[in-house]
């Protein structure tokens, strides 16, 4: 195999690569050994710290699965609300009327500049002040509100980019057969843009799911993240719990990321669409970003 940077290795390069492999392997082994011996020293490798995840089904039924359920619930509710809201904002930002375009643009840019955590903390305080939400539902509401505000603005940008990637001829042709502006949007532009945006939207779901963890850590939302406290309180196995929780997040998000890139590949190949695919918001470090960072096709 060959790439931009190196030729197919010859005998000398192969020998050198083996040396690099060896050195790297030794370094990696040293780091692992150091980490494991440190953990062993603090009794973190003992069987009773890790075994409960296999032997004790209660740990799953009482903590991990309900927590995962809350995480997914918050993520899905946020996505379902943020999607139409974001689409609306994105389309409004493309309006011909400055009095719609400018304020919407300001709101979107403003919301994008504020950390999600701050939006969540603020919504939580807002619900306390209003007193309309019962206190046990408040964390969920605050998390969802924060996520919706932030992600609606991100989705608005994805939608706007999706519509702008469409060839100008689409609008021209629609105008030529006498469609009005609203019709052009709803019948011609948005349906095409939606296919182009799908991978970016699926990747955005990863971002949302990861951000729910903020609610678990700060607002007392009973999600997967917050279960680390409860489990390690019962079994005193902080590191094991964190590792297992991380693995669950990785599994769920990896499934979503894989689905997004599969979808992207399919859409690129499909003859129906324009073949345009909107890159996920590379912008966001908190973006899952698989579809994002522009791998050359």
């Amino acid at each position, binding site marked *: 195999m060959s790439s931009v940077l190196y030729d197919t290795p010859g005998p000398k390069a192969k020998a050198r690569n083996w040396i690099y492999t060896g050195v790297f392997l030794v370094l990696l082994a040293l780091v692992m050994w150091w980490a494991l011996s440190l953990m062993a020293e603090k009794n973190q490798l003992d069987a009773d710290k890790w075994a409960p995840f296999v032997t004790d089904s209660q740990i799953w039924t009482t903590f991990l699965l309900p927590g995962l359920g809350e995480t997914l619930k918050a993520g899905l509710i946020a996505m379902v609300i943020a999607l139409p809201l974001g689409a609306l904002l994105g389309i409004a930002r493309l309006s011909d009327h400055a009095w719609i375009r400018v304020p919407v643009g300001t709101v979107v840019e403003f919301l994008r*500049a504020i950390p999600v955590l*701050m939006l969540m903390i603020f919504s939580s305080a807002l619900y306390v002040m209003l007193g309309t939400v019962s206190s046990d539902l408040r964390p969920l509401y605050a998390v969802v509100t924060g996520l919706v505000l932030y992600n609606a603005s991100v989705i608005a940008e994805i939608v706007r980019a999706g519509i702008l990637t469409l060839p100008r001829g689409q609008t021209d042709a629609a105008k030529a057969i006498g469609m009005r502006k609203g019709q052009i949007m709803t019948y011609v532009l948005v349906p095409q843009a939606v296919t182009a945006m799908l991978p970016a939207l699926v990747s955005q779901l990863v971002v949302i799911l990861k951000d729910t963890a903020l609610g678990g850590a700060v607002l007392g939302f009973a999600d997967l993240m917050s279960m680390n406290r409860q489990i390690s309180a019962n079994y005193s196995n902080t590191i094991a719990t964190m590792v297992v929780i991380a693995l669950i997040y990785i599994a769920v998000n990896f499934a979503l990321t894989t689905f997004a890139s599969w979808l992207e590949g399919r859409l690129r190949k499909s003859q129906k669409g324009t073949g345009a695919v909107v890159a996920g918001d590379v912008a966001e470090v908190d973006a899952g970003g698989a579809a994002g960072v522009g*791998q050359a096709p």
Partner: protein
Amino acid sequence: MFDFLNSGQYDVLGAFWVTVQLTLYSAVGSLIWGTALAGMRVSPVPLMRAFGTAYVNIVRNIPLTLLVLGCSLGLYQTLSITLGGGTSKEVGFRLAILGLIAYTGTFVCEAIRSGINTVPVGQAEAARALGLSFFQVLTLIVLPQAFRAVIAPLTNVLIALTKNTTVAATIGVAEAALLMKEMLENESDAIFAVFAVFALGFVLLTLPTGLLLGWVAKRVAVKR
């Protein structure tokens, strides 16, 4: 309405200064770590490529909150790793930076890797024809061009990093989000004013960064 700013009870500027410090240290660290990861991911050694790919795919899918909290609860409280000692506040600050670097490095890596892909194959072929080694091709020919191409994506990573430093609030680092939480609880009659102050702070941090680096990105982009 904004009299809570003059009461002397809250050090808003101090909190934002911590945010800025977190951002700068993490930015430098993740630039180094991300470049190293990108180097591994494009290297001719399969094991390094595998490590780079695995690291990026695994760490990117873990919530930053979990990483930062893991640094605090796992490394510090369980394994007593203090990263140079000091008070628990100083340790928390450094642990937060460690978590931010581990996480942000993956995004820097992906940005740089996409930049490497923008360098025409001919450049590297010409360099190899001159007899340069892989390391020389990478550091003298490809990375300089790649970096100029990825300033815009890296700017976005930096802006997101700035916002992500608020996650340090979860382990009690006294930065903007933590202060805002405290102020919202104490000044419950002025929550809109408090939120406006902190929102404005972040707009002031991120907006100039974006404009300035956007201008730089246009200036230095390699015209092809």
